[in-house]
């Protein structure tokens, strides 16, 4: 979609195909756009509730699946509150994709260390599909995911199978366990402690709440990752999505145009980038 001209703010009409309840405040929506819209992992789109407004989300589905797009959305504000009321058959608008994708070809031959928290798993799911398509070119994929509690984990039916994929190692940790939970307990940083990663030949990809990313980033630096090898998904208020309204400025960058994924090398000199 062009960023210029009169059509730049007009969304493409899409039909809500399915709504999947993930947790008490997170749902996954399957949308079928009237016109084909393709994206690459890491890029985002704007979802319009007709006549109300739009919000930016990264699709969580496989980019090779062209007819429908999935978005995993947490209820957090007024527009997301209305999105959560959508039912199958309802109309929405989609605008995008915008932003820069993960530079997947540059990960070839390396270990990819994926660290996620909470609803940050949504863009990482799109990334995981992308990595899985190129798994033969990767050394291995290590996934470390943290959640507040077992009930707050998204993709519960699908997630355990990620660890069974070729060359992929998955560990999930919860901050607070409930009876029956047999996995790790503790913040996600606690399960990064013992990992044996060849940091000289690895990249780390992090997505989650700002406070989690801040501490995971610190931990990754302590582990020896170079700032240029840490990829962080930055969340800022966005309106236009195409680098014109300036709401999402992060120092000299615009998250919508230059991001939403940045390396720590790019943003390390910005005071309090989180």
């Amino acid at each position: 979609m062009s960023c210029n001209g009169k059509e730049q703010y007009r969304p493409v009409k899409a039909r809500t195909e399915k709504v999947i309840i993930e947790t008490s405040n997170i749902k996954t929506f399957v949308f079928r756009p009237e016109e084909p819209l393709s994206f690459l992992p890491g890029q985002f789109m704007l979802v319009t509730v007709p006549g109300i407004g739009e919000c930016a989300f990264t699709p969580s589905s496989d980019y090779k699946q062209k007819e429908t797009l999935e978005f995993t959305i947490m209820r957090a504000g007024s527009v997301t509150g209305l999105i959560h009321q959508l039912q199958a058959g309802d109309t929405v608008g989609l605008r995008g994709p915008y932003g820069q994708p993960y530079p997947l070809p540059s990960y070839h031959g390396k270990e990819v260390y994926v660290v996620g928290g909470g609803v940050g798993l949504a863009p990482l799911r799109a990334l995981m599909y992308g990595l899985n398509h190129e798994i033969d070119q990767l050394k291995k994929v290590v996934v470390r995911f943290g959640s507040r509690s077992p009930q707050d984990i998204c993709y519960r039916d699908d997630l355990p199978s990620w660890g069974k994929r070729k060359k992929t190692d998955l560990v999930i940790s919860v901050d607070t366990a409930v009876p029956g939970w047999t996995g790790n307990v503790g913040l996600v940083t606690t399960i990064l402690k013992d990992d044996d990663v060849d940091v000289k030949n690895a990249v780390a990809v992090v997505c989650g709440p700002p406070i989690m990313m801040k501490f995971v980033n610190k931990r990754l630096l302590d582990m020896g990752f170079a700032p240029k090898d840490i990829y962080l998904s930055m969340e800022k208020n966005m309106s236009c999505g195409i680098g014109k309204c300036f709401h999402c400025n992060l120092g000299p960058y615009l998250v919508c145009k230059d991001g939403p994924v940045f390396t720590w090398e790019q943003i390390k000199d910005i005071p309090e980038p989180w």
Partner: protein
Amino acid sequence: MPSYFATQADLEALLARLIAEGEVVAPVLDQGRNILQTVTAATIKDVNLAGYRTVEPYKSYVFKLTERVATYFTPSPAGQNRRLVLFGLRACDLSALDVYHKVMDEGEPAYLVVTADCTACGRTCFCNMVGGKPYAAAGFDLNITALENGYIIETGSPRGEQLLSPLPPATDDQLKLQAGVRNGTEAQLETVNQEFKCKCNINWTEAHRLNLENSKAWKEVTKKCVECSACNFICPSCTCFLLLDSRDEGSLGGARDERGTKDENSRHKVWDACLKNGYARVAGGANSRPKLFERLQNRYHCKFDYSPTRLGRYTCVGCGRCIDACAGNIDMREVYAELVRQVPLTAKLV
């Protein structure tokens, strides 16, 4: 670029032709200041090209306070626009429109530009401190210099040339008078801004970068800010906006179209202000700039640090309107001087 000499009657004839073909906005004198008005046949004689910039910027005629930028899921109503002429704008406003078009990247502007030289400077004008001049060198269709007994009209484009009826070329003496006006205004600007001029080799960008983490300096500057955002709105080169959606009966007047759609969904581009607390707030309430001093600092950094990186230029044009409009008497020139003072001596000597 050829220059011609025009009498007051020639200028009024030009305005009359422009009015017949479109909307003309131009400065008129009001209580000793130039203010911006739409010119009608009855007010042609009120247009004043002497003095300095208008109180309000021209940007609101190009970057509208609220503008419908899309309708969706229903047919778009056809729009009809009259030709717009920005008449008598100064080099600072022209420079600000360059910022707007660089940011929006929406193709060639459709309006005509008739710039006018400043024949005096205001006490808050400081274009000379940010690389500007009180007259335009390029980017106009016509440029006018008001002299005591007439006008020098310079053409800057074939479109501008076509606007003029035959006029005599300006004589050498008349061009000398034009140079005199320009030099005189530049000298006035130097005098007005003498006390703020940096005595060392630190430009605005460096002054900001060297104080990036100096929150003490910014907290001091912010003491006088009342967060009214007047500076954002009056600034000719502040272009931030928010997209707002609405649902209404729109052009269909409540009737259903052939697809059975009744409502028209519209998307509007509305001015926004980075000094407002909610500007950077995300869903759920997190805010990357919750403190006022962080927002004020961000505004200055946007203009003098981030914009040179992103757009290759400052996005302050030195018009000084923010100084006039500020309820707390914050003067951008004083902020700059203060930032330079805060830079360690070693950095100044580099």
